[in-house]
């Protein structure tokens, strides 16, 4: 796959005595969209938080361009984090700021752009995610799906090199979900950035992904291009893609 931009090497992570990542090895290809699928509660969000140093592994390495971020902190970690954008599963908007200030926050903090220019870019991006005219609302006044799209705009506004999306379309109506999937696909194609997406939507996964990885019981049990994934005979993967309750994965 060439030189991966992010690489997990034998990463272990437990909370109390619950093992979440169990020797995870994962390579995120550069300039592609990688979709991580897996069961609810399977550790996808935890994996994503490791990529950006919000959580530290108990054991193992996480390499971003060859640099182990598990060993960094302070300034050095902040420097790497500025290459990332992240959409949180619950949006994680700043409650005390308006929508416009939320989306413009990274620009205010990290660029020298003027106020007018920031306003213009914010409005434009909000229109792109289907939220025209909400600039002056507070996050508490928005619905769950709207908050998520504001979070999406905030993650994209700096056009970062690597963007992590934690379930960008869950909680949206099917039409809006499709629009967001297209937005992700098109901006990725245009910008050639690296996108990592967590998704429960199998159909959309095959539409936007260049690379798919399935996380199960703390490891990657299958990965490859969409075609390779479709042809993969792994019974767990097959059951997951079929989306039925009978098979090797037991619902308890």
């Amino acid at each position, binding site marked *: 796959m060439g030189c991966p931009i992010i690489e997990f090497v034998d990463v272990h992570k437990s909370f109390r*005595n619950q093992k979440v990542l169990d020797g995870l090895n994962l390579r995120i290809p550069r300039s592609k969209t990688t979709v991580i699928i897996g069961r609810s509660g399977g550790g996808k969000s935890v994996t994503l938080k490791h990529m950006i*140093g919000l959580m530290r592994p108990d054991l193992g390495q996480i390499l971003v361009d060859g640099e182990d971020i598990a060993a960094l902190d302070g300034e050095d970690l902040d420097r790497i984090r*500025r290459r*990332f954008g992240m959409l949180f599963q619950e949006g994680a*908007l700043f409650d005390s700021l308006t929508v416009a200030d939320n989306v413009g926050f*990274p620009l205010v903090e990290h660029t020298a752009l003027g106020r007018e220019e920031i306003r213009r870019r914010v409005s434009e991006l909000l229109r792109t995610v289907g939220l025209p005219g909400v600039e002056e609302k507070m996050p508490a006044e928005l619905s769950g799906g709207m908050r998520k799209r504001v979070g999406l705009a905030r993650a994209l506004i700096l056009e970062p090199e690597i963007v992590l999306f934690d379930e960008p379309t869950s909680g949206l109506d099917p039409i809006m979900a499709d629009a967001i999937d297209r937005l992700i696909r098109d901006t990725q194609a245009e910008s050639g950035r690296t996108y990592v997406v967590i998704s429960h939507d199998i159909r959309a996964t095959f539409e936007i992904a260049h690379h798919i990885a399935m996380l199960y019981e703390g490891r990657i049990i299958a990965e490859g291009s969409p075609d390779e994934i479709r042809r993969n005979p792994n019974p767990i993967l097959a059951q997951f893609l079929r989306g039925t309750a009978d098979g090797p994965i037991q619902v308890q």
Partner: protein
Amino acid sequence: MAARIEVEIPAGAAGEAVIHLAGDWTLGSGPPAGADALDSRLDGVARVGFSAAALGAWDSMLPVFLRALCRALAERGVVVDRSGLPEGAQRLLALADAVPARVGGRRDGAGQRFLERLGGDTLAFLATAGRMLAFLGDAVLALWALARGRARFRFRDFLAVVQEAGAEAFPIVSLISLLVGMILAFVGAVQLQLFGAELYVASLVGISMIRVMGAIMTGIIMAGRTGAAFAARLGTMQVNEEIDALRTLGISPMEFLVLPRLLALVLMLPLLCVYADVMGVLGGLLVAVGVLDISVAQYMAQTWASVRPQDLWIGLVHGVVFGVLVALAGCMHGMHCGRSASAVGDATTSAVVTGIVAIIVATAVITVVCNVLGV
């Protein structure tokens, strides 16, 4: 029919046993007959199955008994085949195994011995003190970054805290310090009148308010008002993942959130202290003039003569130290808040408790130091 349990060892199957459950296994029916013989009957058995053919009604007594039994058997290395159990009981057992007991969910605190509790509390206090020191270290690093002009924080946030922690605290600080001044004067006057030394009420109120009481009262008010507000605000941000979002933007929450609060409180607390001192002296004056027949001029002259400049300085030092402590306690408990709404409540409570304890301990330390230095 009462609960019964029997062990059958089928002929021909070496090391295997079937446990028969019979009768009604309900909480009212008493302990099962035959349970005490289990131990000897299962000696040398490597594999156990169940039969529930004669089982009547059952309630939670059955799974509780079976769980204890399965545990004991598993400890001996016996393989347990649960497939012969009623389906409901199997599911309950699976559930009981799947979910570990919640830590702290059981209320057995009352059974703890006094010394044990004391030890636990002491360790918890030391742990809090240790965390506070670590947090202080981080805050100093952030201050250093600020001094080099590399810290990111918004002046606007600083002003907002100054407004909230300073200006909006005026009414309550006025009320409390005025009353404390009056109480000191009343209590002192009763004693001083015995010696005909009523005028010294002015010295008593002036020195105690300006040197420590003004600062302590302001510190405690601020711990309850502002320290709690800091903890609630930062705790909510933690729950809402806002702090994580800041981190992902490469912004240190220590610089962005804690520094403005710390600086604002370190600035405002001494100022409020001076204000509290004035209100306290005013309270003393009201009592002196109203009750003791001392004139305003006499009272002020006596205050002026007895309060030394170093009393004011020491009061201000108290104020600065309390500002640091209250801000740190509030911010620390907020930043270390768990990820649930109830954790925010706990963080707020802890912030107030830690703040007040820290204020009292610091007062003791400063008093001893002043004593040694002779000021």
